[in-house]
């Protein structure tokens, strides 16, 4: 490795060092605040180091990584999201009995894994990144061991994730067996002349889709999602819903664009079925829930379905739409789980619809922020979610995917119903004046409140003036020719 390689990998190195430093500090002196500050500072530092890499053309570190503007943008997105989640975590964990410090180490590690994923161009680095992400998540999910559903969620995720990793590995092995290469570029070169995929290769790709589909929690690999979302602590749920999915989606886009998988109708059919099934199943199942975390879990399944609609557009506009939607969706999801985290008390998370009854009367600002988040998830104008959904619809209409587009519209309407249900509960008039619940020192909540305020403002800003973000995203793809439709 040369010195320039180090420079280009700086964000990953900062994260690695931060994890190590945290471990040493924990060994020497347990203090929640110090660990928290180190974590936040390292996220910020890693994020700032990305500015050095702005506007670069692809820089390859053979054979594992390529750092291009696409990767830089996704790393930036992941780091920013992780930073926001760590901000929300402080107040949440401050009121727990458990030891809090290791949480941050695991958070950094899994962020590192997600960052590695989005710049991989080789099966080895792909698998490495994915496992770093997943292994850290195993323990994050069951971090609050005393909780009722915590072990169930952790074990469920462990078994299913390991299982899906096995599928992924087997798929990779099959691809390697038939093509003799594991780098994306090599695979692309080997299959350019194939009009159809041979059975063995198709099986390999199919098994990889199973592995990837599990991480993305699309139907029919979604069974774990609601239980894990419910059992995990609220900030961790936010992390699973955003960062881990961004990493996997990033690698999926990169791989598919590189090998131009859109040439093969079989693969397109598989993704079309998955997309439609995810939208419908996610939304219909969400209708029946009374637990806010489970509603958000099912809604995330359907949102992944929406993203696949843009993915299936298979052109630059589609990838732009995905990227835009991810930004909007991350702001929204982190905000929504941030509200859940903020309302949680020492014993359990605020996850039942009952906890939100008449919230507008008890805590008007929190209720307003949550309403904004839910409206954004439903894709209502003035919020980022609307512009994202518009972008996806535009990408779909542009490539005349009428079936997918009409499914998306139908599902938006179904989705509306359960988002509105939560809002309606929050806006109900209270029957009796509720006792104000006891809260920790208000200063602890400063970080959470600040983060929520920032997220809400961002949500409206992106919704009202999307031009800046659209411009930034279009710039990425103009300097990353690999992603322009072939």
């Amino acid at each position, binding site marked *: 490795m040369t010195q320039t390689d180090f420079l280009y990998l700086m964000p990953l190195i900062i994260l690695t060092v931060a994890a190590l430093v945290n471990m040493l500090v924990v060994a020497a002196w347990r203090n929640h605040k110090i660990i928290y500050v180190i974590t936040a500072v390292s996220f910020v530092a890693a994020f700032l180091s990305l500015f050095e890499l702005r506007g670069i053309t692809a820089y390859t570190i053979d054979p594992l990584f390529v750092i291009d503007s696409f990767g830089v943008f996704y790393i930036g997105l992941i780091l920013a999201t992780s930073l926001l989640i760590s901000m929300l975590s402080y107040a949440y964990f401050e009121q727990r009995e458990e030891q809090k410090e290791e949480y941050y180490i695991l958070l950094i590690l899994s962020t590192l894994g997600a960052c590695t994923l989005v710049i991989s161009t080789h099966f080895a680095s792909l698998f490495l990144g994915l496992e770093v992400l997943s292994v850290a998540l195993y323990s994050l999910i069951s971090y609050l061991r005393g909780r009722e559903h915590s072990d169930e969620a952790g074990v469920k995720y462990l078994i299913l994730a390991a299982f899906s990793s096995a599928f992924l590995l087997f798929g990779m092995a099959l691809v390697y067996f038939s093509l003799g290469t594991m780098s994306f570029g090599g695979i692309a070169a080997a299959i350019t002349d194939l009009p159809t995929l041979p059975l063995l290769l198709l099986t390999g790709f199919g098994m990889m889709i199973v592995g990837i589909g599990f991480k993305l929690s699309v139907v029919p690999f979604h069974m774990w999602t609601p239980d894990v979302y419910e059992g995990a602590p609220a900030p961790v749920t936010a992390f699973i819903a955003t960062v881990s999915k961004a990493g996997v989606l990033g690698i999926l886009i990169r791989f598919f664009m590189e090998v131009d998988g859109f040439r093969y109708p079989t693969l397109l059919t598989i993704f079309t079925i998955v997309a439609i099934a995810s939208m419908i199943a996610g939304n219909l199942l969400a209708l029946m829930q009374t637990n806010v975390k489970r509603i958000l879990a099912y809604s995330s399944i359907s949102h992944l379905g929406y993203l696949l609609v843009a993915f299936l557009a298979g052109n630059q506009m589609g990838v732009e739409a995905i990227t835009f939607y991810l930004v909007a969706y991350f702001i929204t999801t982190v905000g929504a789980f941030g509200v859940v985290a903020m309302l949680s008390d020492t014993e359990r998370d605020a996850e039942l619809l009952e906890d939100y009854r008449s919230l507008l009367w008890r805590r008007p600002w929190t209720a307003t922020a949550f309403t904004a988040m839910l409206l954004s998830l439903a894709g209502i*104008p003035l919020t980022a979610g609307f512009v994202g959904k518009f972008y996806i*619809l535009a990408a779909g*209409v542009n490539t005349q995917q009428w079936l997918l587009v*009409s499914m998306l*519209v139908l599902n938006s*309407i179904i989705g*509306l119903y359960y988002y509105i249900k939560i809002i309606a509960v929050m806006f109900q008039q209270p029957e009796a004046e509720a006792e104000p619940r006891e809260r920790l020192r208000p200063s602890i909540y400063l970080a959470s409140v600040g983060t929520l305020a920032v997220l809400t403002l961002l949500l409206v800003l992106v919704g009202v003036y999307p*031009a800046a973000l*659209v411009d930034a995203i279009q710039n990425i793809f103009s300097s990353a020719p690999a992603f322009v439709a072939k």
Partner: protein
Amino acid sequence: MILLWMIVILMAGGLLAWLSKKWHPVLPRWIALFAVLTDFILAVYLWLSTPAATLGASPWLVQLEIPWVPQWGVNFILALDGLSLLMLLLTFFIGILAVLISWREIKVKTGFFHFNLLWVLAGITGVFLTMDLFLFYFFWEVMLIPMYFLIGVWGHANRNYAAYKFFLFTQASGLLMLLAILGLYFIHGSQNGNYTFNYFELLGTTLAPEAARLLMFGFLAAFLVKLPVVPFHSWLPDAHSEAPTAGSVILAGLLLKTGAYGLLRFVLPLFPTATVEFAPWAMLLGVVGIIYGAILAYSQTDLKRLVAYTSVSHMGFVILGVFAFNEWALQGVVMQMIAHGLSTGALFIIAGFLYERLHTRDIGQMGGFWAKAPKMGVIALVFVMASLGLPGLGNFIAEFLTLVGSWQANNWLTVFATIGLVLATAYSLRIMQKVFYEPAPTDHPLADLNVREMLIAVPMVVLILWLGLYPQPVLDTATPSINQQLQAYQELEVKEEKVAVVEEKAEEQSIKQTKRENTKVPL
């Protein structure tokens, strides 16, 4: 710039009203009143300074264009013509009334209430002004959410159900319109490489008949649900009857008009051939709506529900007129939008006054109020008469013009539509009889209108009389933009006329008129 200010004043006023609740409980009301009043004055100023319409001049009075999302060809275009101006005047007038009638009625969360009220008005203002289809959809949705909250938080007992239904119906139909907008956008872009949502540029898009039909149905979905036309009307009685008075007034007076406005502004000029094909069906739906709404109105016992169904009936005239494609009918439609906004708004306000006093909307428990509350009785009489189309009041002009226009397009359907007027007499008189003339079931005293209430009611009476006795200023303001909407059809007719001339030369004007209708059928 003045157009942008109108929207900004409402939105900023809304935010300020919300925040000002902390400082003083009455402040939100005054801020809201002041904001709407300012806008009303601006609109009146615009109207008075409008030059008299000259033939052939551009109908656009004021225009504003700011790039918004240039990458997608989205521009912040606001433009005002006579039609928009009339709609704005109506919007702000009804807005003022909505603030005034909530003065006593709304007691909880007043800050948030006025925020929602002003934002609904801002959304409606945007819908009436914008000439960019992306922005149009944007405002279309902006007026939806605050309305949902108005119904869902301050409504009557069954408010949650009504709010849900309203929201789902309008949102679902709105999304179909969004798809149609996108379809139009990409078809236009692929033709000349200019991807834009600009209304003026999209007007010239040439569409294949099949595409035009599909896109038209996308737009129609949104507007017919909002209007509402009969199979899609079921959200309306619930929403209208459960909303607080200000909500009902805005729903009936303004939100329904956005549907009619959308038909005039977008469906007619964008899809001239597809609409002609669809016209007989649309007119049929209109007639079904007129009669069905009237029959259902007659059988209601809930006063607000009754008035809500009269809206269904009256809106039938709108769609009947729009799809007649001639100036008479469209003038009638514009008059109907204004007159119905006033008269139905007034009836809802009276229902609100009664509810405040009696805490019931059940007609069975009312009666004998003519003696107890004579002022209220007189005002109710005026608007009931307006609703049944008594000459001298605005609705008569509207319905007369619409029927004259639609007669030229389709004789038989017009005959059936006229039956609606008879039914209107029946249900309107039933209101008067049940509420005011019949002997009282109970002997409770009923307070007559106080000064604030008179202040609300009297201007409406004056306006509806003015519309009925001297409608010329309104017609003059609307004429240029109506001709603009009909341009595509006049070109069509010119072509047909040439054919007619070749067949039989030199015919009298009146015969030619009927000839046109005859040649229109095979299209």
